[in-house]
């Protein structure tokens, strides 16, 4: 095995964690780096909650890319069950094996059952895959949008998250030699049970400050001029203070900056903002509330504040 395929060791301090995330172009604040560092070091799952588009899922992706570990993603949805999330038996292969055994005159029923319920016939789903030893180190397991699934599924997770093991009745208990780095995200469309949260380190991911958001825009959309990116960030920050149903997230800011740069916009003006408002706001009520004079008002406010700061 060459050095290249060896996984990177986990960061050794909070500063190293900030640096690691920055390497993957993720500009994290100190609080997030602290909790992430602790989660990695203590081998505890990290439970991230926050509005849509603040970069919850991105953390797992960046972590897997910078640590050079496999990313295993479990996207949650209503009705998600063991056979889709943990494991399933390959029934077709099992039936063939049984018929073949019968054709050979196999009489021992117990042995037949043992053979059929062996690892050969096991289909591994994300949670089980995450517990397997991997040449590139323990993988990063992303359990995305856990609030989309129902309460029943949370119960499946308890054993996995506290002991990093899964019990398969026919086979026994599978335990991870090295616990995976687990990131769980939730948009808080419902409350997750305390029993599950208790096993994790919790962090609320808030909207970034203006300086951080500006830095994010500059690093992710490098083509945008300094002046425009400042205006974009100031406008979005002002918009978040408005009484809108869904405030734009960082993802929307980036989309907007990219959209404006595609349109060769140099500086914001009311008409352009109104035309591209759909990139930022996703509810018609919110768009209707802002269109027209309100946009101009906000923009003037933002511009005068920027002039004052200069």
């Amino acid at each position, binding site marked *: 095995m060459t050095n290249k395929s060896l996984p990177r060791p986990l960061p050794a301090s*909070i500063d190293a964690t900030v640096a690691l995330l920055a390497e993957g172009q993720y500009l994290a604040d*100190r*609080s997030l780096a*602290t*909790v992430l*560092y*602790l*989660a990695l*070091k*203590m081998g*505890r799952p990290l439970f991230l*909650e926050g509005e849509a588009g603040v970069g919850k899922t991105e953390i797992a992706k960046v972590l897997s890319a910078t640590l050079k570990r496999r990313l295993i993603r479990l996207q949650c*949805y*209503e*009705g998600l*069950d063991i*056979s889709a999330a943990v494991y399933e*038996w390959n*029934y077709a292969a*099992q*039936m063939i094996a*049984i018929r073949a055994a*019968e054709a050979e005159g196999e009489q021992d*029923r117990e042995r*037949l*059952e043992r053979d059929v319920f062996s690892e050969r016939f096991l289909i591994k789903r994300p949670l089980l895959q995450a517990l397997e030893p991997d040449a590139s180190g323990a993988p990063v397991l992303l359990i995305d949008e856990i*609030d989309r699934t*129902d*309460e*029943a599924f949370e119960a499946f997770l308890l054993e996995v998250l506290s002991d990093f093991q899964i019990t398969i009745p026919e086979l026994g208990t599978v335990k991870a030699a090295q616990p995976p780095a687990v990131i769980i995200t939730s*948009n*808080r*469309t*419902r*409350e997750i049970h*305390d029993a599950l*949260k*208790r096993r994790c*380190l*919790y*962090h*609320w991911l808030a909207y970034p400050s203006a300086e951080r958001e500006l830095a994010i825009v500059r690093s992710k959309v490098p083509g945008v001029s300094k002046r425009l990116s400042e205006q974009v960030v100031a406008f979005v920050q002002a918009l978040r203070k408005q*009484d809108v*149903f869904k405030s734009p997230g960082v993802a929307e800011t980036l989309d907007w900056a990219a959209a404006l740069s595609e349109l060769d916009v140099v500086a914001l003006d009311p008409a352009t903002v109104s035309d591209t408002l759909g990139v930022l706001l996703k509810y018609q*009520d919110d768009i209707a509330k802002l269109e027209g004079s309100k946009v101009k008002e906000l923009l003037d406010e933002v511009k005068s504040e920027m002039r004052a700061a200069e």
Partner: protein
Amino acid sequence: MAETNGRLAENIIYFARALRAAGIPVGPGAVLDALAAVDTAGVGTRDDFYWTLHAVFVKRHEHSVLFDQAFRIFFRRRGYLDQLMAMMLPQAPSTPRPPEAGATRIQEALFSGLDDKLKKQQEIELDTRMTVSDREVLQRKDFAQMTNAEIAAAKDAIKRLVLPLAEVRTRRLAPHPRGHLIDIRRTLRSSFKGGGDFIDLRFVGPKSRPPPVVALLDISGSMSQYSRIFLHFLHALTDTRKRVSTFLFGTRLTNVTRALRERDPDDALASCSAVVPDWSGGTRIASSLHAFNKLWARRVLTQGPVVLLITDGLERDADDNLAFEIDRLHRSCRRLVWLNPLLRFEGFEARARGIKTMLPYVDEFRPIHNLESIGALVASMQPGRGAGADPKAWMQKVA
């Protein structure tokens, strides 16, 4: 080092206790975690220490504020944190501090002082609420205790309660004798029993379960005489069914779901009363609904809930805002049911402006003729008695 660690551990334990007093549920497991976390991260800067403890102790976003206050008060005293850091830093001079006289007493004072401070802070908050509006009457509510017979009758009635959409199909599958999908796992298992000669098919079908219930209960002055019976009803409902969220509103919106989870109905109502500052005041339906739509709708209106809106609809400022908010509420739930106790009076007509504004947006408009018992309340909600439930009929009456 052992001594410093000991002191650190002691302080974290005290701090955890302070958090518990402030209302953050912190178990012994969390304290152990905190010790491990501080050990892992080290005590670097004040910020790092803060976020390290935050990572372990805070499990809900709303606890962040409490944690912040407790942390500042607890570690502000006598530059304690600076001392602590000086002790923990490797390059710090290793002069062992002699145990100060009465160190334990100081700890005690520190701890009891915190309690007072938190209390004072809460009082101050209350004071500011008093000044918000003169229309808001802030008062606590005393409920008459519930008798055993009443409790038994209530439970009995709730068992018979059939809410609209009693059961909805979920996407989860369960064994079902006439299901539409073959359950290969169980089929194969059972065929082994017979040696694999016969394959007896087993089926699964969609599981059905009661949808979540979200109740919005008006506790303004005009509704005050009914709030006890409705709260008992909601408590019994919370007790028998999963996924029931309850919000009270008068001039402001309060989530009392956790308070209603207390087993004993009297305890539940008492803790409800303790968290709600605006009993029997005015009504601001539009702004309460706005608060609900903005802050809570995305969190509790998932998985297709039935929303019970319990109000007399007597709103002072019935304007476009009210229509807008109720429309949004209607669009984000499976079924919006309005229970109106005003309808118990003979010859009631939906003339009040608030009622007229809200009527077009509800799916069911349920009169409650008798509010003397939960049994009667439950009876008035039976689907069979739907003749008077169509909001259109009420709208035509006044038109």
